[in-house]
């Protein structure tokens, strides 16, 4: 921990960018969404586990949240909304936990609405979220899985979109961005061909304050900007199938 800021030092939490989503790593999995103890994640919002009432639920999910950059930016933008990051890598999840803890201590009353959980979101999204619970889902710079035989491991795929459509309420928004053009085309194509997603119009994208954060809020996005790379985004709304 850095003595000056109290924030964790990233160099002690380095991990490979790639993690095998097929492996059944041993982390606890809630049997169903009502088994998740939100008082552990948002202690100021829910004083005890009994107080997790029906009213307040997680609404934003950052899938593959990495080092937590997006969550931290979103926290101030939507202070009344509960948000959670999902990350597969153990060390990175630890880093985000420490980072949020430190920020809460340094800024009393702030950052109480964000948290992180270590899980495989490709398998366990229905375990965490009820039908239509989420209003925003983020997939920022996902693993491209370049080889064609590994394409089915991509976090955005025709079949997995069924599960994301389940967790997102009608009108909810899915944000995807990548610096790999082929992956960008793939994600856009998957979303376009899925009957429950419809692309946002240019005007809607302009009006959404979150869209700018896709490139600027995360470490990955900042790295791409530094290197002068291009990004490819696809943002869609969850709709009723016709």
């Amino acid at each position, binding site marked *: 921990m850095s003595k000056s800021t109290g924030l964790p030092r990233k*160099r002690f939490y380095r991990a490979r960018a790639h993690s095998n989503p097929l492996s059944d790593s041993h982390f606890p999995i809630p049997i169903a969404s009502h088994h998740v103890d939100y008082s552990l994640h948002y202690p100021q919002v829910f004083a005890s586990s009994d107080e997790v009432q029906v009213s307040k639920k997680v609404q934003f999910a950052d899938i593959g949240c990495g080092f937590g950059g997006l969550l931290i930016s979103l926290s101030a933008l939507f202070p009344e909304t509960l948000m959670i990051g999902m990350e597969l890598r153990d060390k990175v999840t630890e880093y985000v936990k420490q980072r949020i803890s430190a920020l809460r201590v340094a800024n009393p009353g702030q950052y109480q609405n964000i948290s992180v959980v270590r899980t495989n979101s490709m398998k366990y999204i229905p375990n965490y979220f009820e039908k239509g619970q989420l209003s925003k889902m983020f997939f920022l710079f996902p693993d491209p899985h370049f080889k064609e035989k*590994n394409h089915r491991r991509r976090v955005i795929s025709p079949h997995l979109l069924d599960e994301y459509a389940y967790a997102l309420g009608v009108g909810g928004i899915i944000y995807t961005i990548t610096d790999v053009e082929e992956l960008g085309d793939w994600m856009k194509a998957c979303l376009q061909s899925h*009957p429950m997603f419809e692309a946002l119009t240019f005007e809607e994208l302009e009006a959404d304050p979150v869209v700018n954060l896709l490139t600027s809020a995360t470490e990955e996005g900042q790295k791409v900007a530094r290197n002068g790379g291009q990004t490819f985004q696809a943002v869609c709304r969850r709709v009723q199938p016709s």
Partner: protein
Amino acid sequence: MEDAPMEYGESNKEIEVAPALIAVHPNQESVAVAVGSDLRVFDLQGDCAVSLVDDSSGGSLHKDSIRAIRYGANGKLFVSAGDDKLVKIWSTESWRCISTVCSEKRVSAVAITNDGLYVCFADKFGVVWVVDVDGSDGQAIVNKKAAPMLSHYCSIITSLEFSPEGQFIVSADRDFKIRVTAFPNKPLDGAHEIQSYCLGHTEFVSCLAFACNVEYPQGFLVSGSGDSTVRLWEISSGTLLDTCEVGGKAGLLESNGREEECCSAITDLCTNSDGTLVAVAVQSLQGIILLSCNLSARTLSLAKVVSIGGETFIPTRLVASRSTGLLWMITGVSNLRGYEYTSLARVRVIFGFNKSNHDFIQNERLVLEDDKVPGGSNLLEKLQGSVSFDEKVFVAAAEAVKTAMGNFITVCDTMAERRVRNADRGRIRDHNADCS
């Protein structure tokens, strides 16, 4: 870390045992049994054994263990599929194979729509495929290609069921989940609308069935699991209505002396025609457990333990004939090692399964003797391959099935542990590299 996708069951290089399966025609016109790659059918109407006709270009008959067999609700179609990655669709009138569909992976479950228009099959990778069956019964269909309809990401699908009115398709997997998906008008374009998830089981879900009657035509879902419970669900909301701790209640744990989870896993279950009874096969129980199902109260409760005396009969599959109220049971396995017989199949029948009244439950003599079974010794000879057995074979078969089910869980665990160890090793290496 391995790059190849994790294939459960295929990592085990030994020849796997396959439990014996049984299926009965909705009007009990015929009974089918599958043991290993052998498919045996007896025609009860004609009182004779059936010779299957298969001149598909995909290959005649099955070449490897059959893992799923099923009759369609209207009785016109029969489907068989398994480890040879072939799904064979048969006409029940001519017993000719009218279509052979190739699957990319080994097949673990099949289902037929109530109107007989589509056949769905699930593979060991968690994908459910759909293929349309041409309306022309009996006519050979040009080899069809299946379309992927939905997927349980990287999980083996253990059971597939259509809801009684055909609105939903329910799929259960080894990761404790049951998914209820709306079955669309054009299933070949995919089934994208997830209606609900039925979550609550704490072990792999092994079997599904619907309990319905005239009053509740949409019915309720009944599920059995490796966690030794049978649960009742309302599928449009995914609500758990009741849980019956079968293993504990039947006193299995006490009789074994020590608690062995895989000994009381639910192997199979089936419901009767008016949704009042559920027959449950539990690993290590020589017989079945009858549960009383109350659809208006939405409850399940233990009614009776039916022992099957005379031989060590631990059923591997149960199926009910709606029209006659007979419960057909089979025990058996293929690829038995180190024994004179390489496979076993033994069929027993319980009568009165369509009645839930007190008398039926109290009646001790529920199991039919061999001479009272429909089709008698002709049927038994055809389906079992023999009419007399050595008791030792039953014991060996029961052990083999138990081991196979144990492997089902532990293979997955072992592979997961190996990955975690490798992952940890990788992390230590990375950490060292960064800190230097």
